[in-house]
């Protein structure tokens, strides 16, 4: 079990910066994020987009801002559970919070900080009603172990990097590989596109463009067939062992919805001036929260995190007084000293 002061759900820019502000108050942080890397939307949705409204940085690429934030919080040695979704929240007998992740990791702390942005990023599922019936029984939204597909007939759908890359990786593993894409142009790395096209020419990959999987069939046990609608060939059925739709990720609020927090269409309701939810000891900062005048901006999230930790401190150290100090006054030595004492 991981013991910490602040359990931060979401390792996007605001979750990361929370570590810095908490660190200044000598509060330790553990971050949980479903994505395998920190950065949230900045890494997952728009890494190469410049951001223009970070004070003091006229223009910075989203991925560079993430890298800088990680560097900035490094001295405070935050710990991470990445690739894990915060699943369950409970109160322990001692009044601590305990979060259980999708991988069974237990994280215990005095304060929970929701910095979960738009929710957790999950695979975008094609709107085929029968699909749910065969999830993990032939339908996979991501590939964990390529060996699972050894000597199988598989069909990958999608036109981006992950569809192309997995086609390349699985061509020597699976018996047959179908690749189905909505149009004839692919996005993704030109090099991968070229490689896939070569395999198509050599007859090792069966490519269907301007085509979509519109239905799936199977039996009690598993998926057996997919129905493909193609501009060229009309509608037909194809026997497959696995259907792997790779249409990117989309954020979902997910389990947080059932944590007893007051929410509205816009997000988790928080109070002024500490961005605390209706449950004492649970805070929400960044895109996930809502209050009168809320703007979903990274810079507002930074501000929220800064004010929030001032209140969070009192949950961790109920008997201590908090004294406020500028980082310019602390200096580098002072900062490092604080970090070392964590």
């Amino acid at each position: 079990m991981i013991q910490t002061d602040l359990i931060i759900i979401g390792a996007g820019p605001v979750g990361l910066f929370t570590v810095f502000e908490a660190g200044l108050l000598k509060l330790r942080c553990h971050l949980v994020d479903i994505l395998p890397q920190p950065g949230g939307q900045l890494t997952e949705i728009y890494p190469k987009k410049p951001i223009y409204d970070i004070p003091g940085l006229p223009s910075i690429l989203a991925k560079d801002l993430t890298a800088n934030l990680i560097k900035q919080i490094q001295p405070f040695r935050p710990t991470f559970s990445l690739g894990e979704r915060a699943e369950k929240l409970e109160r322990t007998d001692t009044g601590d919070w305990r979060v259980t992740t999708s991988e069974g990791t237990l994280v215990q702390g005095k304060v929970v900080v929701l910095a979960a942005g738009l929710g957790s990023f999950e695979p975008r599922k094609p709107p085929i009603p029968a699909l749910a019936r065969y999830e993990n029984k032939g339908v996979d939204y991501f590939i964990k172990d390529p060996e699972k597909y050894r000597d199988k007939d598989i069909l990958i759908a999608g036109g981006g990097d992950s569809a192309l890359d997995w086609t390349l990786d699985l061509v020597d593993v699976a018996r047959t590989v179908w690749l189905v894409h909505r149009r004839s142009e692919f996005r993704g790395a030109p090099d991968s596109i070229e490689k896939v096209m070569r395999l198509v020419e050599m007859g090792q990959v069966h490519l269907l463009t301007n085509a979509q999987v519109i239905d799936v069939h199977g039996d009690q046990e598993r998926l057996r067939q997919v129905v493909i609608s193609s501009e060229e060939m009309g509608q037909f059925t194809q026997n497959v062992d696995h259907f792997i739709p790779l249409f990117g990720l989309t954020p979902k609020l997910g389990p947080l919805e059932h944590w007893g927090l007051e929410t509205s269409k816009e997000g988790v309701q928080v109070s002024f001036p500490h961005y605390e939810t209706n449950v004492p000891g649970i805070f929400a900062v960044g895109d996930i929260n809502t209050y009168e005048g809320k703007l979903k901006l990274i810079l507002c999230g930074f501000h929220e995190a800064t004010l929030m930790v001032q209140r969070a401190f009192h949950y961790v150290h109920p008997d201590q007084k908090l004294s406020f100090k500028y980082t310019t006054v602390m200096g580098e030595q002072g900062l490092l000293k604080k970090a070392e004492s964590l």
Partner: protein
Amino acid sequence: MIRITVIDREGKEHLLEAPTDMHMNVMELCKAYELAVKGTCGGMAMCSTCHVYILSDTKLPDMKPEEEDMLDQAFFVDSRSRLGCQLMISPEMDGLKVRLAPEED
């Protein structure tokens, strides 16, 4: 000011007055009128929550690669599909009619 018709997911028609001088797009227009359009990514063509079908023969700006790419990841896509956030409102769009695409689960 021009007029744009939006048919919501319940089939109800909304005739919206749209300013052409505010650098607004169709996604933002729908949100301003509180229609059920999420616009999750804020207009970067990086989600598909503002997916609409073009029902009128209005001349529209060509699709940029990022819009095409995003539609690849969307569902219920057909030849009339566009992302509302990539349709900057201009005087030529007067009379545009769109239908909101179904929401993904």
